[in-house]
């Protein structure tokens, strides 16, 4: 997704559960609704964890991608 403006980059590479999720919560707490963040993680658990988190918290995943060991999620804050 090249047309979406990213308001916050969240680099969680090298971090394991629950760090990416905890960082997501902290970031979205400080952001405004409508803002967009990009999360990059290497934790294999994050493939399912991030969508589960988004579903429960009501945040929207605009785009997700898996490339090698990296999982990228572009999330719009509700």
């Amino acid at each position, binding site marked *: 997704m090249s047309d979406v403006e990213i308001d916050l980059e969240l680099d969680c590479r090298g971090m394991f559960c*629950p760090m990416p999720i*905890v960082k997501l*919560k902290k970031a979205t707490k400080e952001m405004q609704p409508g803002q967009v963040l990009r999360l990059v993680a290497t934790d294999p658990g994050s493939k399912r964890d991030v969508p589960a*988190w988004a579903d429960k918290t009501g945040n929207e995943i605009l785009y997700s991608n898996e490339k090698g060991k990296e999982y990228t999620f572009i999330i719009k804050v509700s």
Partner: protein
Amino acid sequence: MAIIVHSGTLDMLYPVFMLASTGGSMDMDVHLFFTFWGLNALKKGGLESAKLPGVMSLGTGMMKGKIKKVGVPSLPELLEMTRMTENVTIYACSTTMELMDVPKEQLIPEVDEIVGAASFLAIAMDADVQLFI
């Protein structure tokens, strides 16, 4: 989510705080009730000094070293993350405090309330997840 924290060893406290920080980050209402050995974790310095169980306690240093090397947070760091979510309430068991002679002043400031089993059960009845760790 309602968790009875009965155990006070490092290996048992990790799942408590992993689940609590994750649940709190998912906007779940999390309630942690520390009783029996779990109460030791709520004493000042308690989380820092939690050990592996039994004879494995001798390996606590090695385990903590590996934890740090891999990048997993320490228990005190996990407690801080848990509080950050603002969705987690920490309770100390009043009877255990009496049993083990732990005065309120010896508890960490993160303890929200001192309650008994009835309070915990009233909360647990409405929870979607109930655990005994």
